[in-house]
């Protein structure tokens, strides 16, 4: 059942419309638990699109096993998705910096407030992001340290590879996830893959995990997998690899591999002079969970992130 979550008229014969798909059992008791799958806040992050499709496909195959409510919001920022724009076109602000929104505010703030109202009664919400076009990420959940106690147990069931508990930052207080977490609706932020692309393998793994969450909440009675054990960032320090020179980055290792201290990660080449400007080495033993995808780099561009791990192999 397709429902309209929020709508606002645009100047030229169009409405800004946020829609959702609701899947529920034929007969409701009124006590059903509810999970919300949200994606498309950033118009250039598309990994969640396949997840939205795949969840519905699996539920429809065994609709008798559905005992709760599944709400799917594939496009919070439809204008951005249509125009390959991260933010809402015409607004300078990132949509993920205007939550919880304001029903009396600008169009974007009004839409944001309607979305929050619609999602807030969920028992769990998964907010799916991709990385940007520059970096490839392994499937991971990012958790503000303020919410770690509540969210880490949920994240462990999601069949992702990595849980990154990060420090609190004032600028992140206006995100969709933080706004809902602060009013008691648990939201897990998933980051995976790369911007403007769909990585089917990651999407399927995440969908497996979402069904584990659904089973745990009593929304799904079908078979589910045993989720993998994620690495948690509090287990070790995150090391950043930044470019020291402008040039073209050519990795020499695969993404999501174990690296040793001193092992080579890649090179920054200078095509004009035909030389290597910089060789990039790991400064610790660990796993390379972020790797640059877009080759052209400026000084400072992020090339990769390594989680320090001693003696363990991926």
């Amino acid at each position, binding site marked *: 059942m397709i429902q309209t979550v929020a709508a*606002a*008229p*645009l*100047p*030229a*014969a169009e409405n800004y419309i946020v829609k959702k798909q609701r899947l529920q059992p034929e007969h409701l008791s009124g006590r059903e638990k509810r999970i919300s799958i949200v994606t498309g806040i950033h118009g250039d992050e598309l990994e969640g699109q396949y997840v939205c499709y795949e969840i519905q496909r699996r539920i429809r195959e065994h609709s008798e096993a559905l005992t709760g409510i599944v709400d799917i919001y594939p496009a919070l920022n439809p204008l951005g998705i249509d125009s390959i724009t*991260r933010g809402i076109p*015409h607004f*300078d*602000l990132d949509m993920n*910096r205007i939550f919880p929104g304001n029903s*009396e*505010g*600008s*169009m974007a703030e*009004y839409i944001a407030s309607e979305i929050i109202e619609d999602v807030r009664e969920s028992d769990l919400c998964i907010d799916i992001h991709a990385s*940007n076009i*520059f970096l490839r990420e392994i499937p991971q959940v990012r958790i503000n340290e303020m919410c770690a106690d509540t969210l880490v147990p949920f994240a462990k069931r999601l069949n992702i590879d990595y849980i990154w508990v990060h420090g609190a930052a*004032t*600028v*992140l*207080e*206006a995100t969709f996830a933080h706004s809902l977490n602060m009013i008691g609706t648990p939201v897990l932020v998933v980051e995976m893959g790369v911007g403007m692309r769909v990585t089917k393998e990651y999407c399927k793994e995440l969908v497996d995990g979402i069904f584990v969450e659904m089973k745990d909440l009593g929304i799904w009675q079908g078979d589910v997998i045993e989720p993998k054990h994620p690495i948690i960032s509090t287990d070790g320090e995150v090391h*950043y690899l*930044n470019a020291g*020179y*402008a*040039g*073209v980055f050519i990795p020499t290792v695969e993404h999501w591999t174990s690296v040793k201290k001193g092992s080579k990660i890649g090179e920054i080449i*200078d095509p*004009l002079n035909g030389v290597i400007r910089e060789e990039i080495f790991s400064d610790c033993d660990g796993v390379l969970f972020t790797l640059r995808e877009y080759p*052209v*780099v*400026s*000084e*400072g*561009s*992020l090339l990769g992130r390594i989680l320090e791990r001693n003696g363990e192999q991926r």
Partner: protein
Amino acid sequence: MKKVQLYELKSLYRDSLKIYGYQFGGSEKTVCIVGAIRGNEVQQLYMCSQLVKVLKTLEKRGQMDSKQGIMVVPAVNPYSLNTNTRFWATDNTDINRMFPGYDLGETTQRIAGGFFQEVNDYTYGIHFTSFYLEGNFTPHVRIMKTGYENVEIAKEFGMPYIMLRNPKPYDTTTLNYEWQLWGTQAFSVYTPGTDQIDRAQAREGVNAVLRFLASQGIIRISQDGGYRSRIIEEEELVTVRTNRSGILFFHCKCGDHIREGETVAEIMDAYEGEVIETIQAPCSGRIFYHGSNPLIYSNTAVVKIIRDPQAEYFQQ
């Protein structure tokens, strides 16, 4: 005058990005004035160029203090000015959301960090800036309420208004905010205009800074005293919003005095040309801000009014 390079970032194919400062007067770090941090802040760049021109003359004539020093930085982001993009062209990040910066971080964090290191120990910091919404403001000095703000000294600009803003989360990484946290008295000077130059308004902004410099004894000039500034809190502004979307026409401009019930704008159907909404002033007062985009969304702030029941006395 001494032209100094404050920061350099090498590029693969482009000429290096260089941030220049123009130093005047003595060696003390008294006032730093910053122009374009975004690539469309042409008015702000122009205002700095006019300030450099005036200060050069004053220095030649010996009308400058020998101890206190001034630095003018016309542009922190010349790359984006040259490619006509508001933000950093590669990843669309805003350098004015990266302060205090980080020298081992991403590119715009490094630029913000490298630049901030050169300007974080001035007594006063002045930023010619533009707002995140398209539109025009009545000229004013804006101060972020960080707990370190100095409203009294802002009166020395002699601008019509001093606006006090409670910082939102996204303000906490701007130059103005970080300057204050690091002990610099920071002021943002707003004049109408961003990507188009308004010479008369630019002159107002430059004169305000000259007035401030003279009040501190940094330059010696005879100049008018400007306005006796009215102090307003941002929350006091009355926001007027649209109900409909379409083509917007204003019946007023910044600085106009209006009466309650007066028409401030009309919205036309974008296809059929009929007026579909008449927007009236909910109170008497003075127009402080109005939008500039003719295509308008519904529920959007188009006008902000400084409430003033006596506005009719001023009405021409």
